[in-house]
């Protein structure tokens, strides 16, 4: 691998042992993927900062980096954590020790990482420019960065994003290379699409069938930014997808020809309404009847999505005994408080949380076993991590279910 003078000095240990180790790891990753050289990154987003994923040794390691005054060289934000830093007691986590989470937060922040604690950090100051090289982890973010913004990231792991942040470099491979960003599979959507839950279902179905190839969507009419975020999150839930094109919508594909470049589609996936509903056979396995827990905002809701929730809840009350959490980031919650959006949600009996990822929180302490949500990603991981049964429906229906307190069964 070709390294410039500064990178050689990092590898030689001129910037300390941590930078040396980080560069060793990046060189190794580069060699594994036949990267010819490193590129400078303009930003990083680090996940894997949740206490549950760590152990005493790895937390001590992160703390040592902070103690050695290691600083990130790129603008770096932090992903969600396992609780709401401000309101975790109000959420019911009264018997949980979050000492390790606070230790991790403190250490990462001491290295210069910005604690936005969100899986949608682009709503909170980390917004790459078209063509920027960045190193972003949290699987829902690469499809947004690559497809929607036209910036360039590989599917980073939390630890590799940390190494990239420390050195300000990432190997030139994966989606940093224009050739790898071209479309490979044509996806023909043959049914009308509306709302983030439909786009989630589409991503879930296509992610399962497209492998690691870049899908190109035909038949989608002007999806909103929120819908594209939920499409990408679902694509990256069932498949290792980090890039897609919607000709005429996403910035690197003005039309079909640009999306595929010199290639012909290797496969065509036709998607009918029936195909879209397939994942619900698995995800809508909650017993019908009274519900206990409703969670929205996976990925973290935007201010406009919070506005939709408030509109649906205006003047209404969620059913007694039902817990409703709406997840977003601290900066967006702050704005929602200013706008009165938060108040409407709280008046209706809901909670507006910041920082947290529900499924990575100690939900078992609250005794929940089921979850109603508008996100297929949320439902998928609630099965995997929390052993929950779930129901997925449109936002409108989820709110109605929260108000009636009853789920009537499969969609």
């Amino acid at each position, binding site marked *: 691998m070709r390294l410039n003078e500064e990178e050689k000095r990092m590898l030689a240990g001129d910037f300390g042992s941590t930078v040396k180790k980080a560069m060793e790891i990046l060189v190794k990753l580069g060699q*594994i993927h036949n990267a010819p050289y490193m590129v400078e990154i303009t930003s990083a987003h680090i996940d894997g900062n949740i206490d549950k*994923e*760590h152990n005493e040794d790895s937390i001590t*390691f992160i703390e040592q980096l902070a103690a050695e005054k290691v600083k990130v060289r790129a603008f770096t934000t932090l992903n969600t954590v396992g609780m709401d830093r401000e309101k975790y007691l109000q959420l019911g986590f009264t018997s949980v020790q979050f000492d390790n989470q606070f230790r991790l937060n403190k250490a990462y922040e001491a290295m210069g990482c910005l604690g936005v604690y969100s899986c949608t950090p682009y709503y909170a100051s980390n917004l790459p420019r078209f063509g920027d090289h960045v190193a972003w982890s949290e699987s829902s973010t690469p499809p947004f960065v690559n497809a929607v913004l036209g910036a360039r990231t590989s599917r980073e792991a*939390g630890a590799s994003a940390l190494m990239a942040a420390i050195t300000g470099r990432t190997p030139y491979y994966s989606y940093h290379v224009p050739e790898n960003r071209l479309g490979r599979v044509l996806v023909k959507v043959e049914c009308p699409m509306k709302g983030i839950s439909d786009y989630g279902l589409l991503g879930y179905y296509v992610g399962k069938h497209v492998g690691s190839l870049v899908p190109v969507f035909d038949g989608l009419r002007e999806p909103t930014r929120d819908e594209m975020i939920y499409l990408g999150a679902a694509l990256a839930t069932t498949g290792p997808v980090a890039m897609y094109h919607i000709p005429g919508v996403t910035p690197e594909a003005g039309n079909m020809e640009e999306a595929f470049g010199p290639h012909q589609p290797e496969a065509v996936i036709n998607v009918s309404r029936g195909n879209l509903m397939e994942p619900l056979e698995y995800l809508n396995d909650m017993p019908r009847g009274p519900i206990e827990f409703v969670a929205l905002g996976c990925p973290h809701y935007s201010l406009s999505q919070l506005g939709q929730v408030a509109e649906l809840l205006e003047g209404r009350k969620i059913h007694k005994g039902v817990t409703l959490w709406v997840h977003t980031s601290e900066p967006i919650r702050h704005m929602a408080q200013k706008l009165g959006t938060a108040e409407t949600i709280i008046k209706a009996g809901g909670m507006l949380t910041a920082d947290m990822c529900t499924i990575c929180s100690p939900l078992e302490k609250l005794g929940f076993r089921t979850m109603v949500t508008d996100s297929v990603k949320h439902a998928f991981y609630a099965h995997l991590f929390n052993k929950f049964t779930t129901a997925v429906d449109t936002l409108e229906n989820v709110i109605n279910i929260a108000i009636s307190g009853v789920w009537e069964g499969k969609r």
Partner: protein
Amino acid sequence: MSNKVLTGRSISPGIAEGVAIVSRDPIVFNLGIDAESGVIVEKGHDLEGQSVQGKILIFPYGKGSTGGAWTIFRMGLRKSGPLAMVCQNAEVLTTIGSILGNIPVVDGFSPEQLQKIKSGVRIRVDGAKGILELNP
């Protein structure tokens, strides 16, 4: 048995010698292995209930949550895991965990090459050179 040298690719430097334990299944390092004892705890795994501690772990590749890098790191630090690892392709979590945890790793071997290695055989791994030696 005769001595045999296989050349792969260097992932994490260091030299280790010990007895092989061969996993046919990929390994979920995050929650699939107990970092204290080195015992594989993933249900249905072909090594379920067996410890990889103090052995040379041969496996196809790591899978699942990238938090697994921190499990490998912990095993390396505490010397509670394998002495070295050999795999088909080291993905991100195996690469980072082993370099940070100072566990020698070589990869780049075909499934056929790895299938010929039986649990219990003596192996020497040179992580920097990317080679493994059978019956050294």
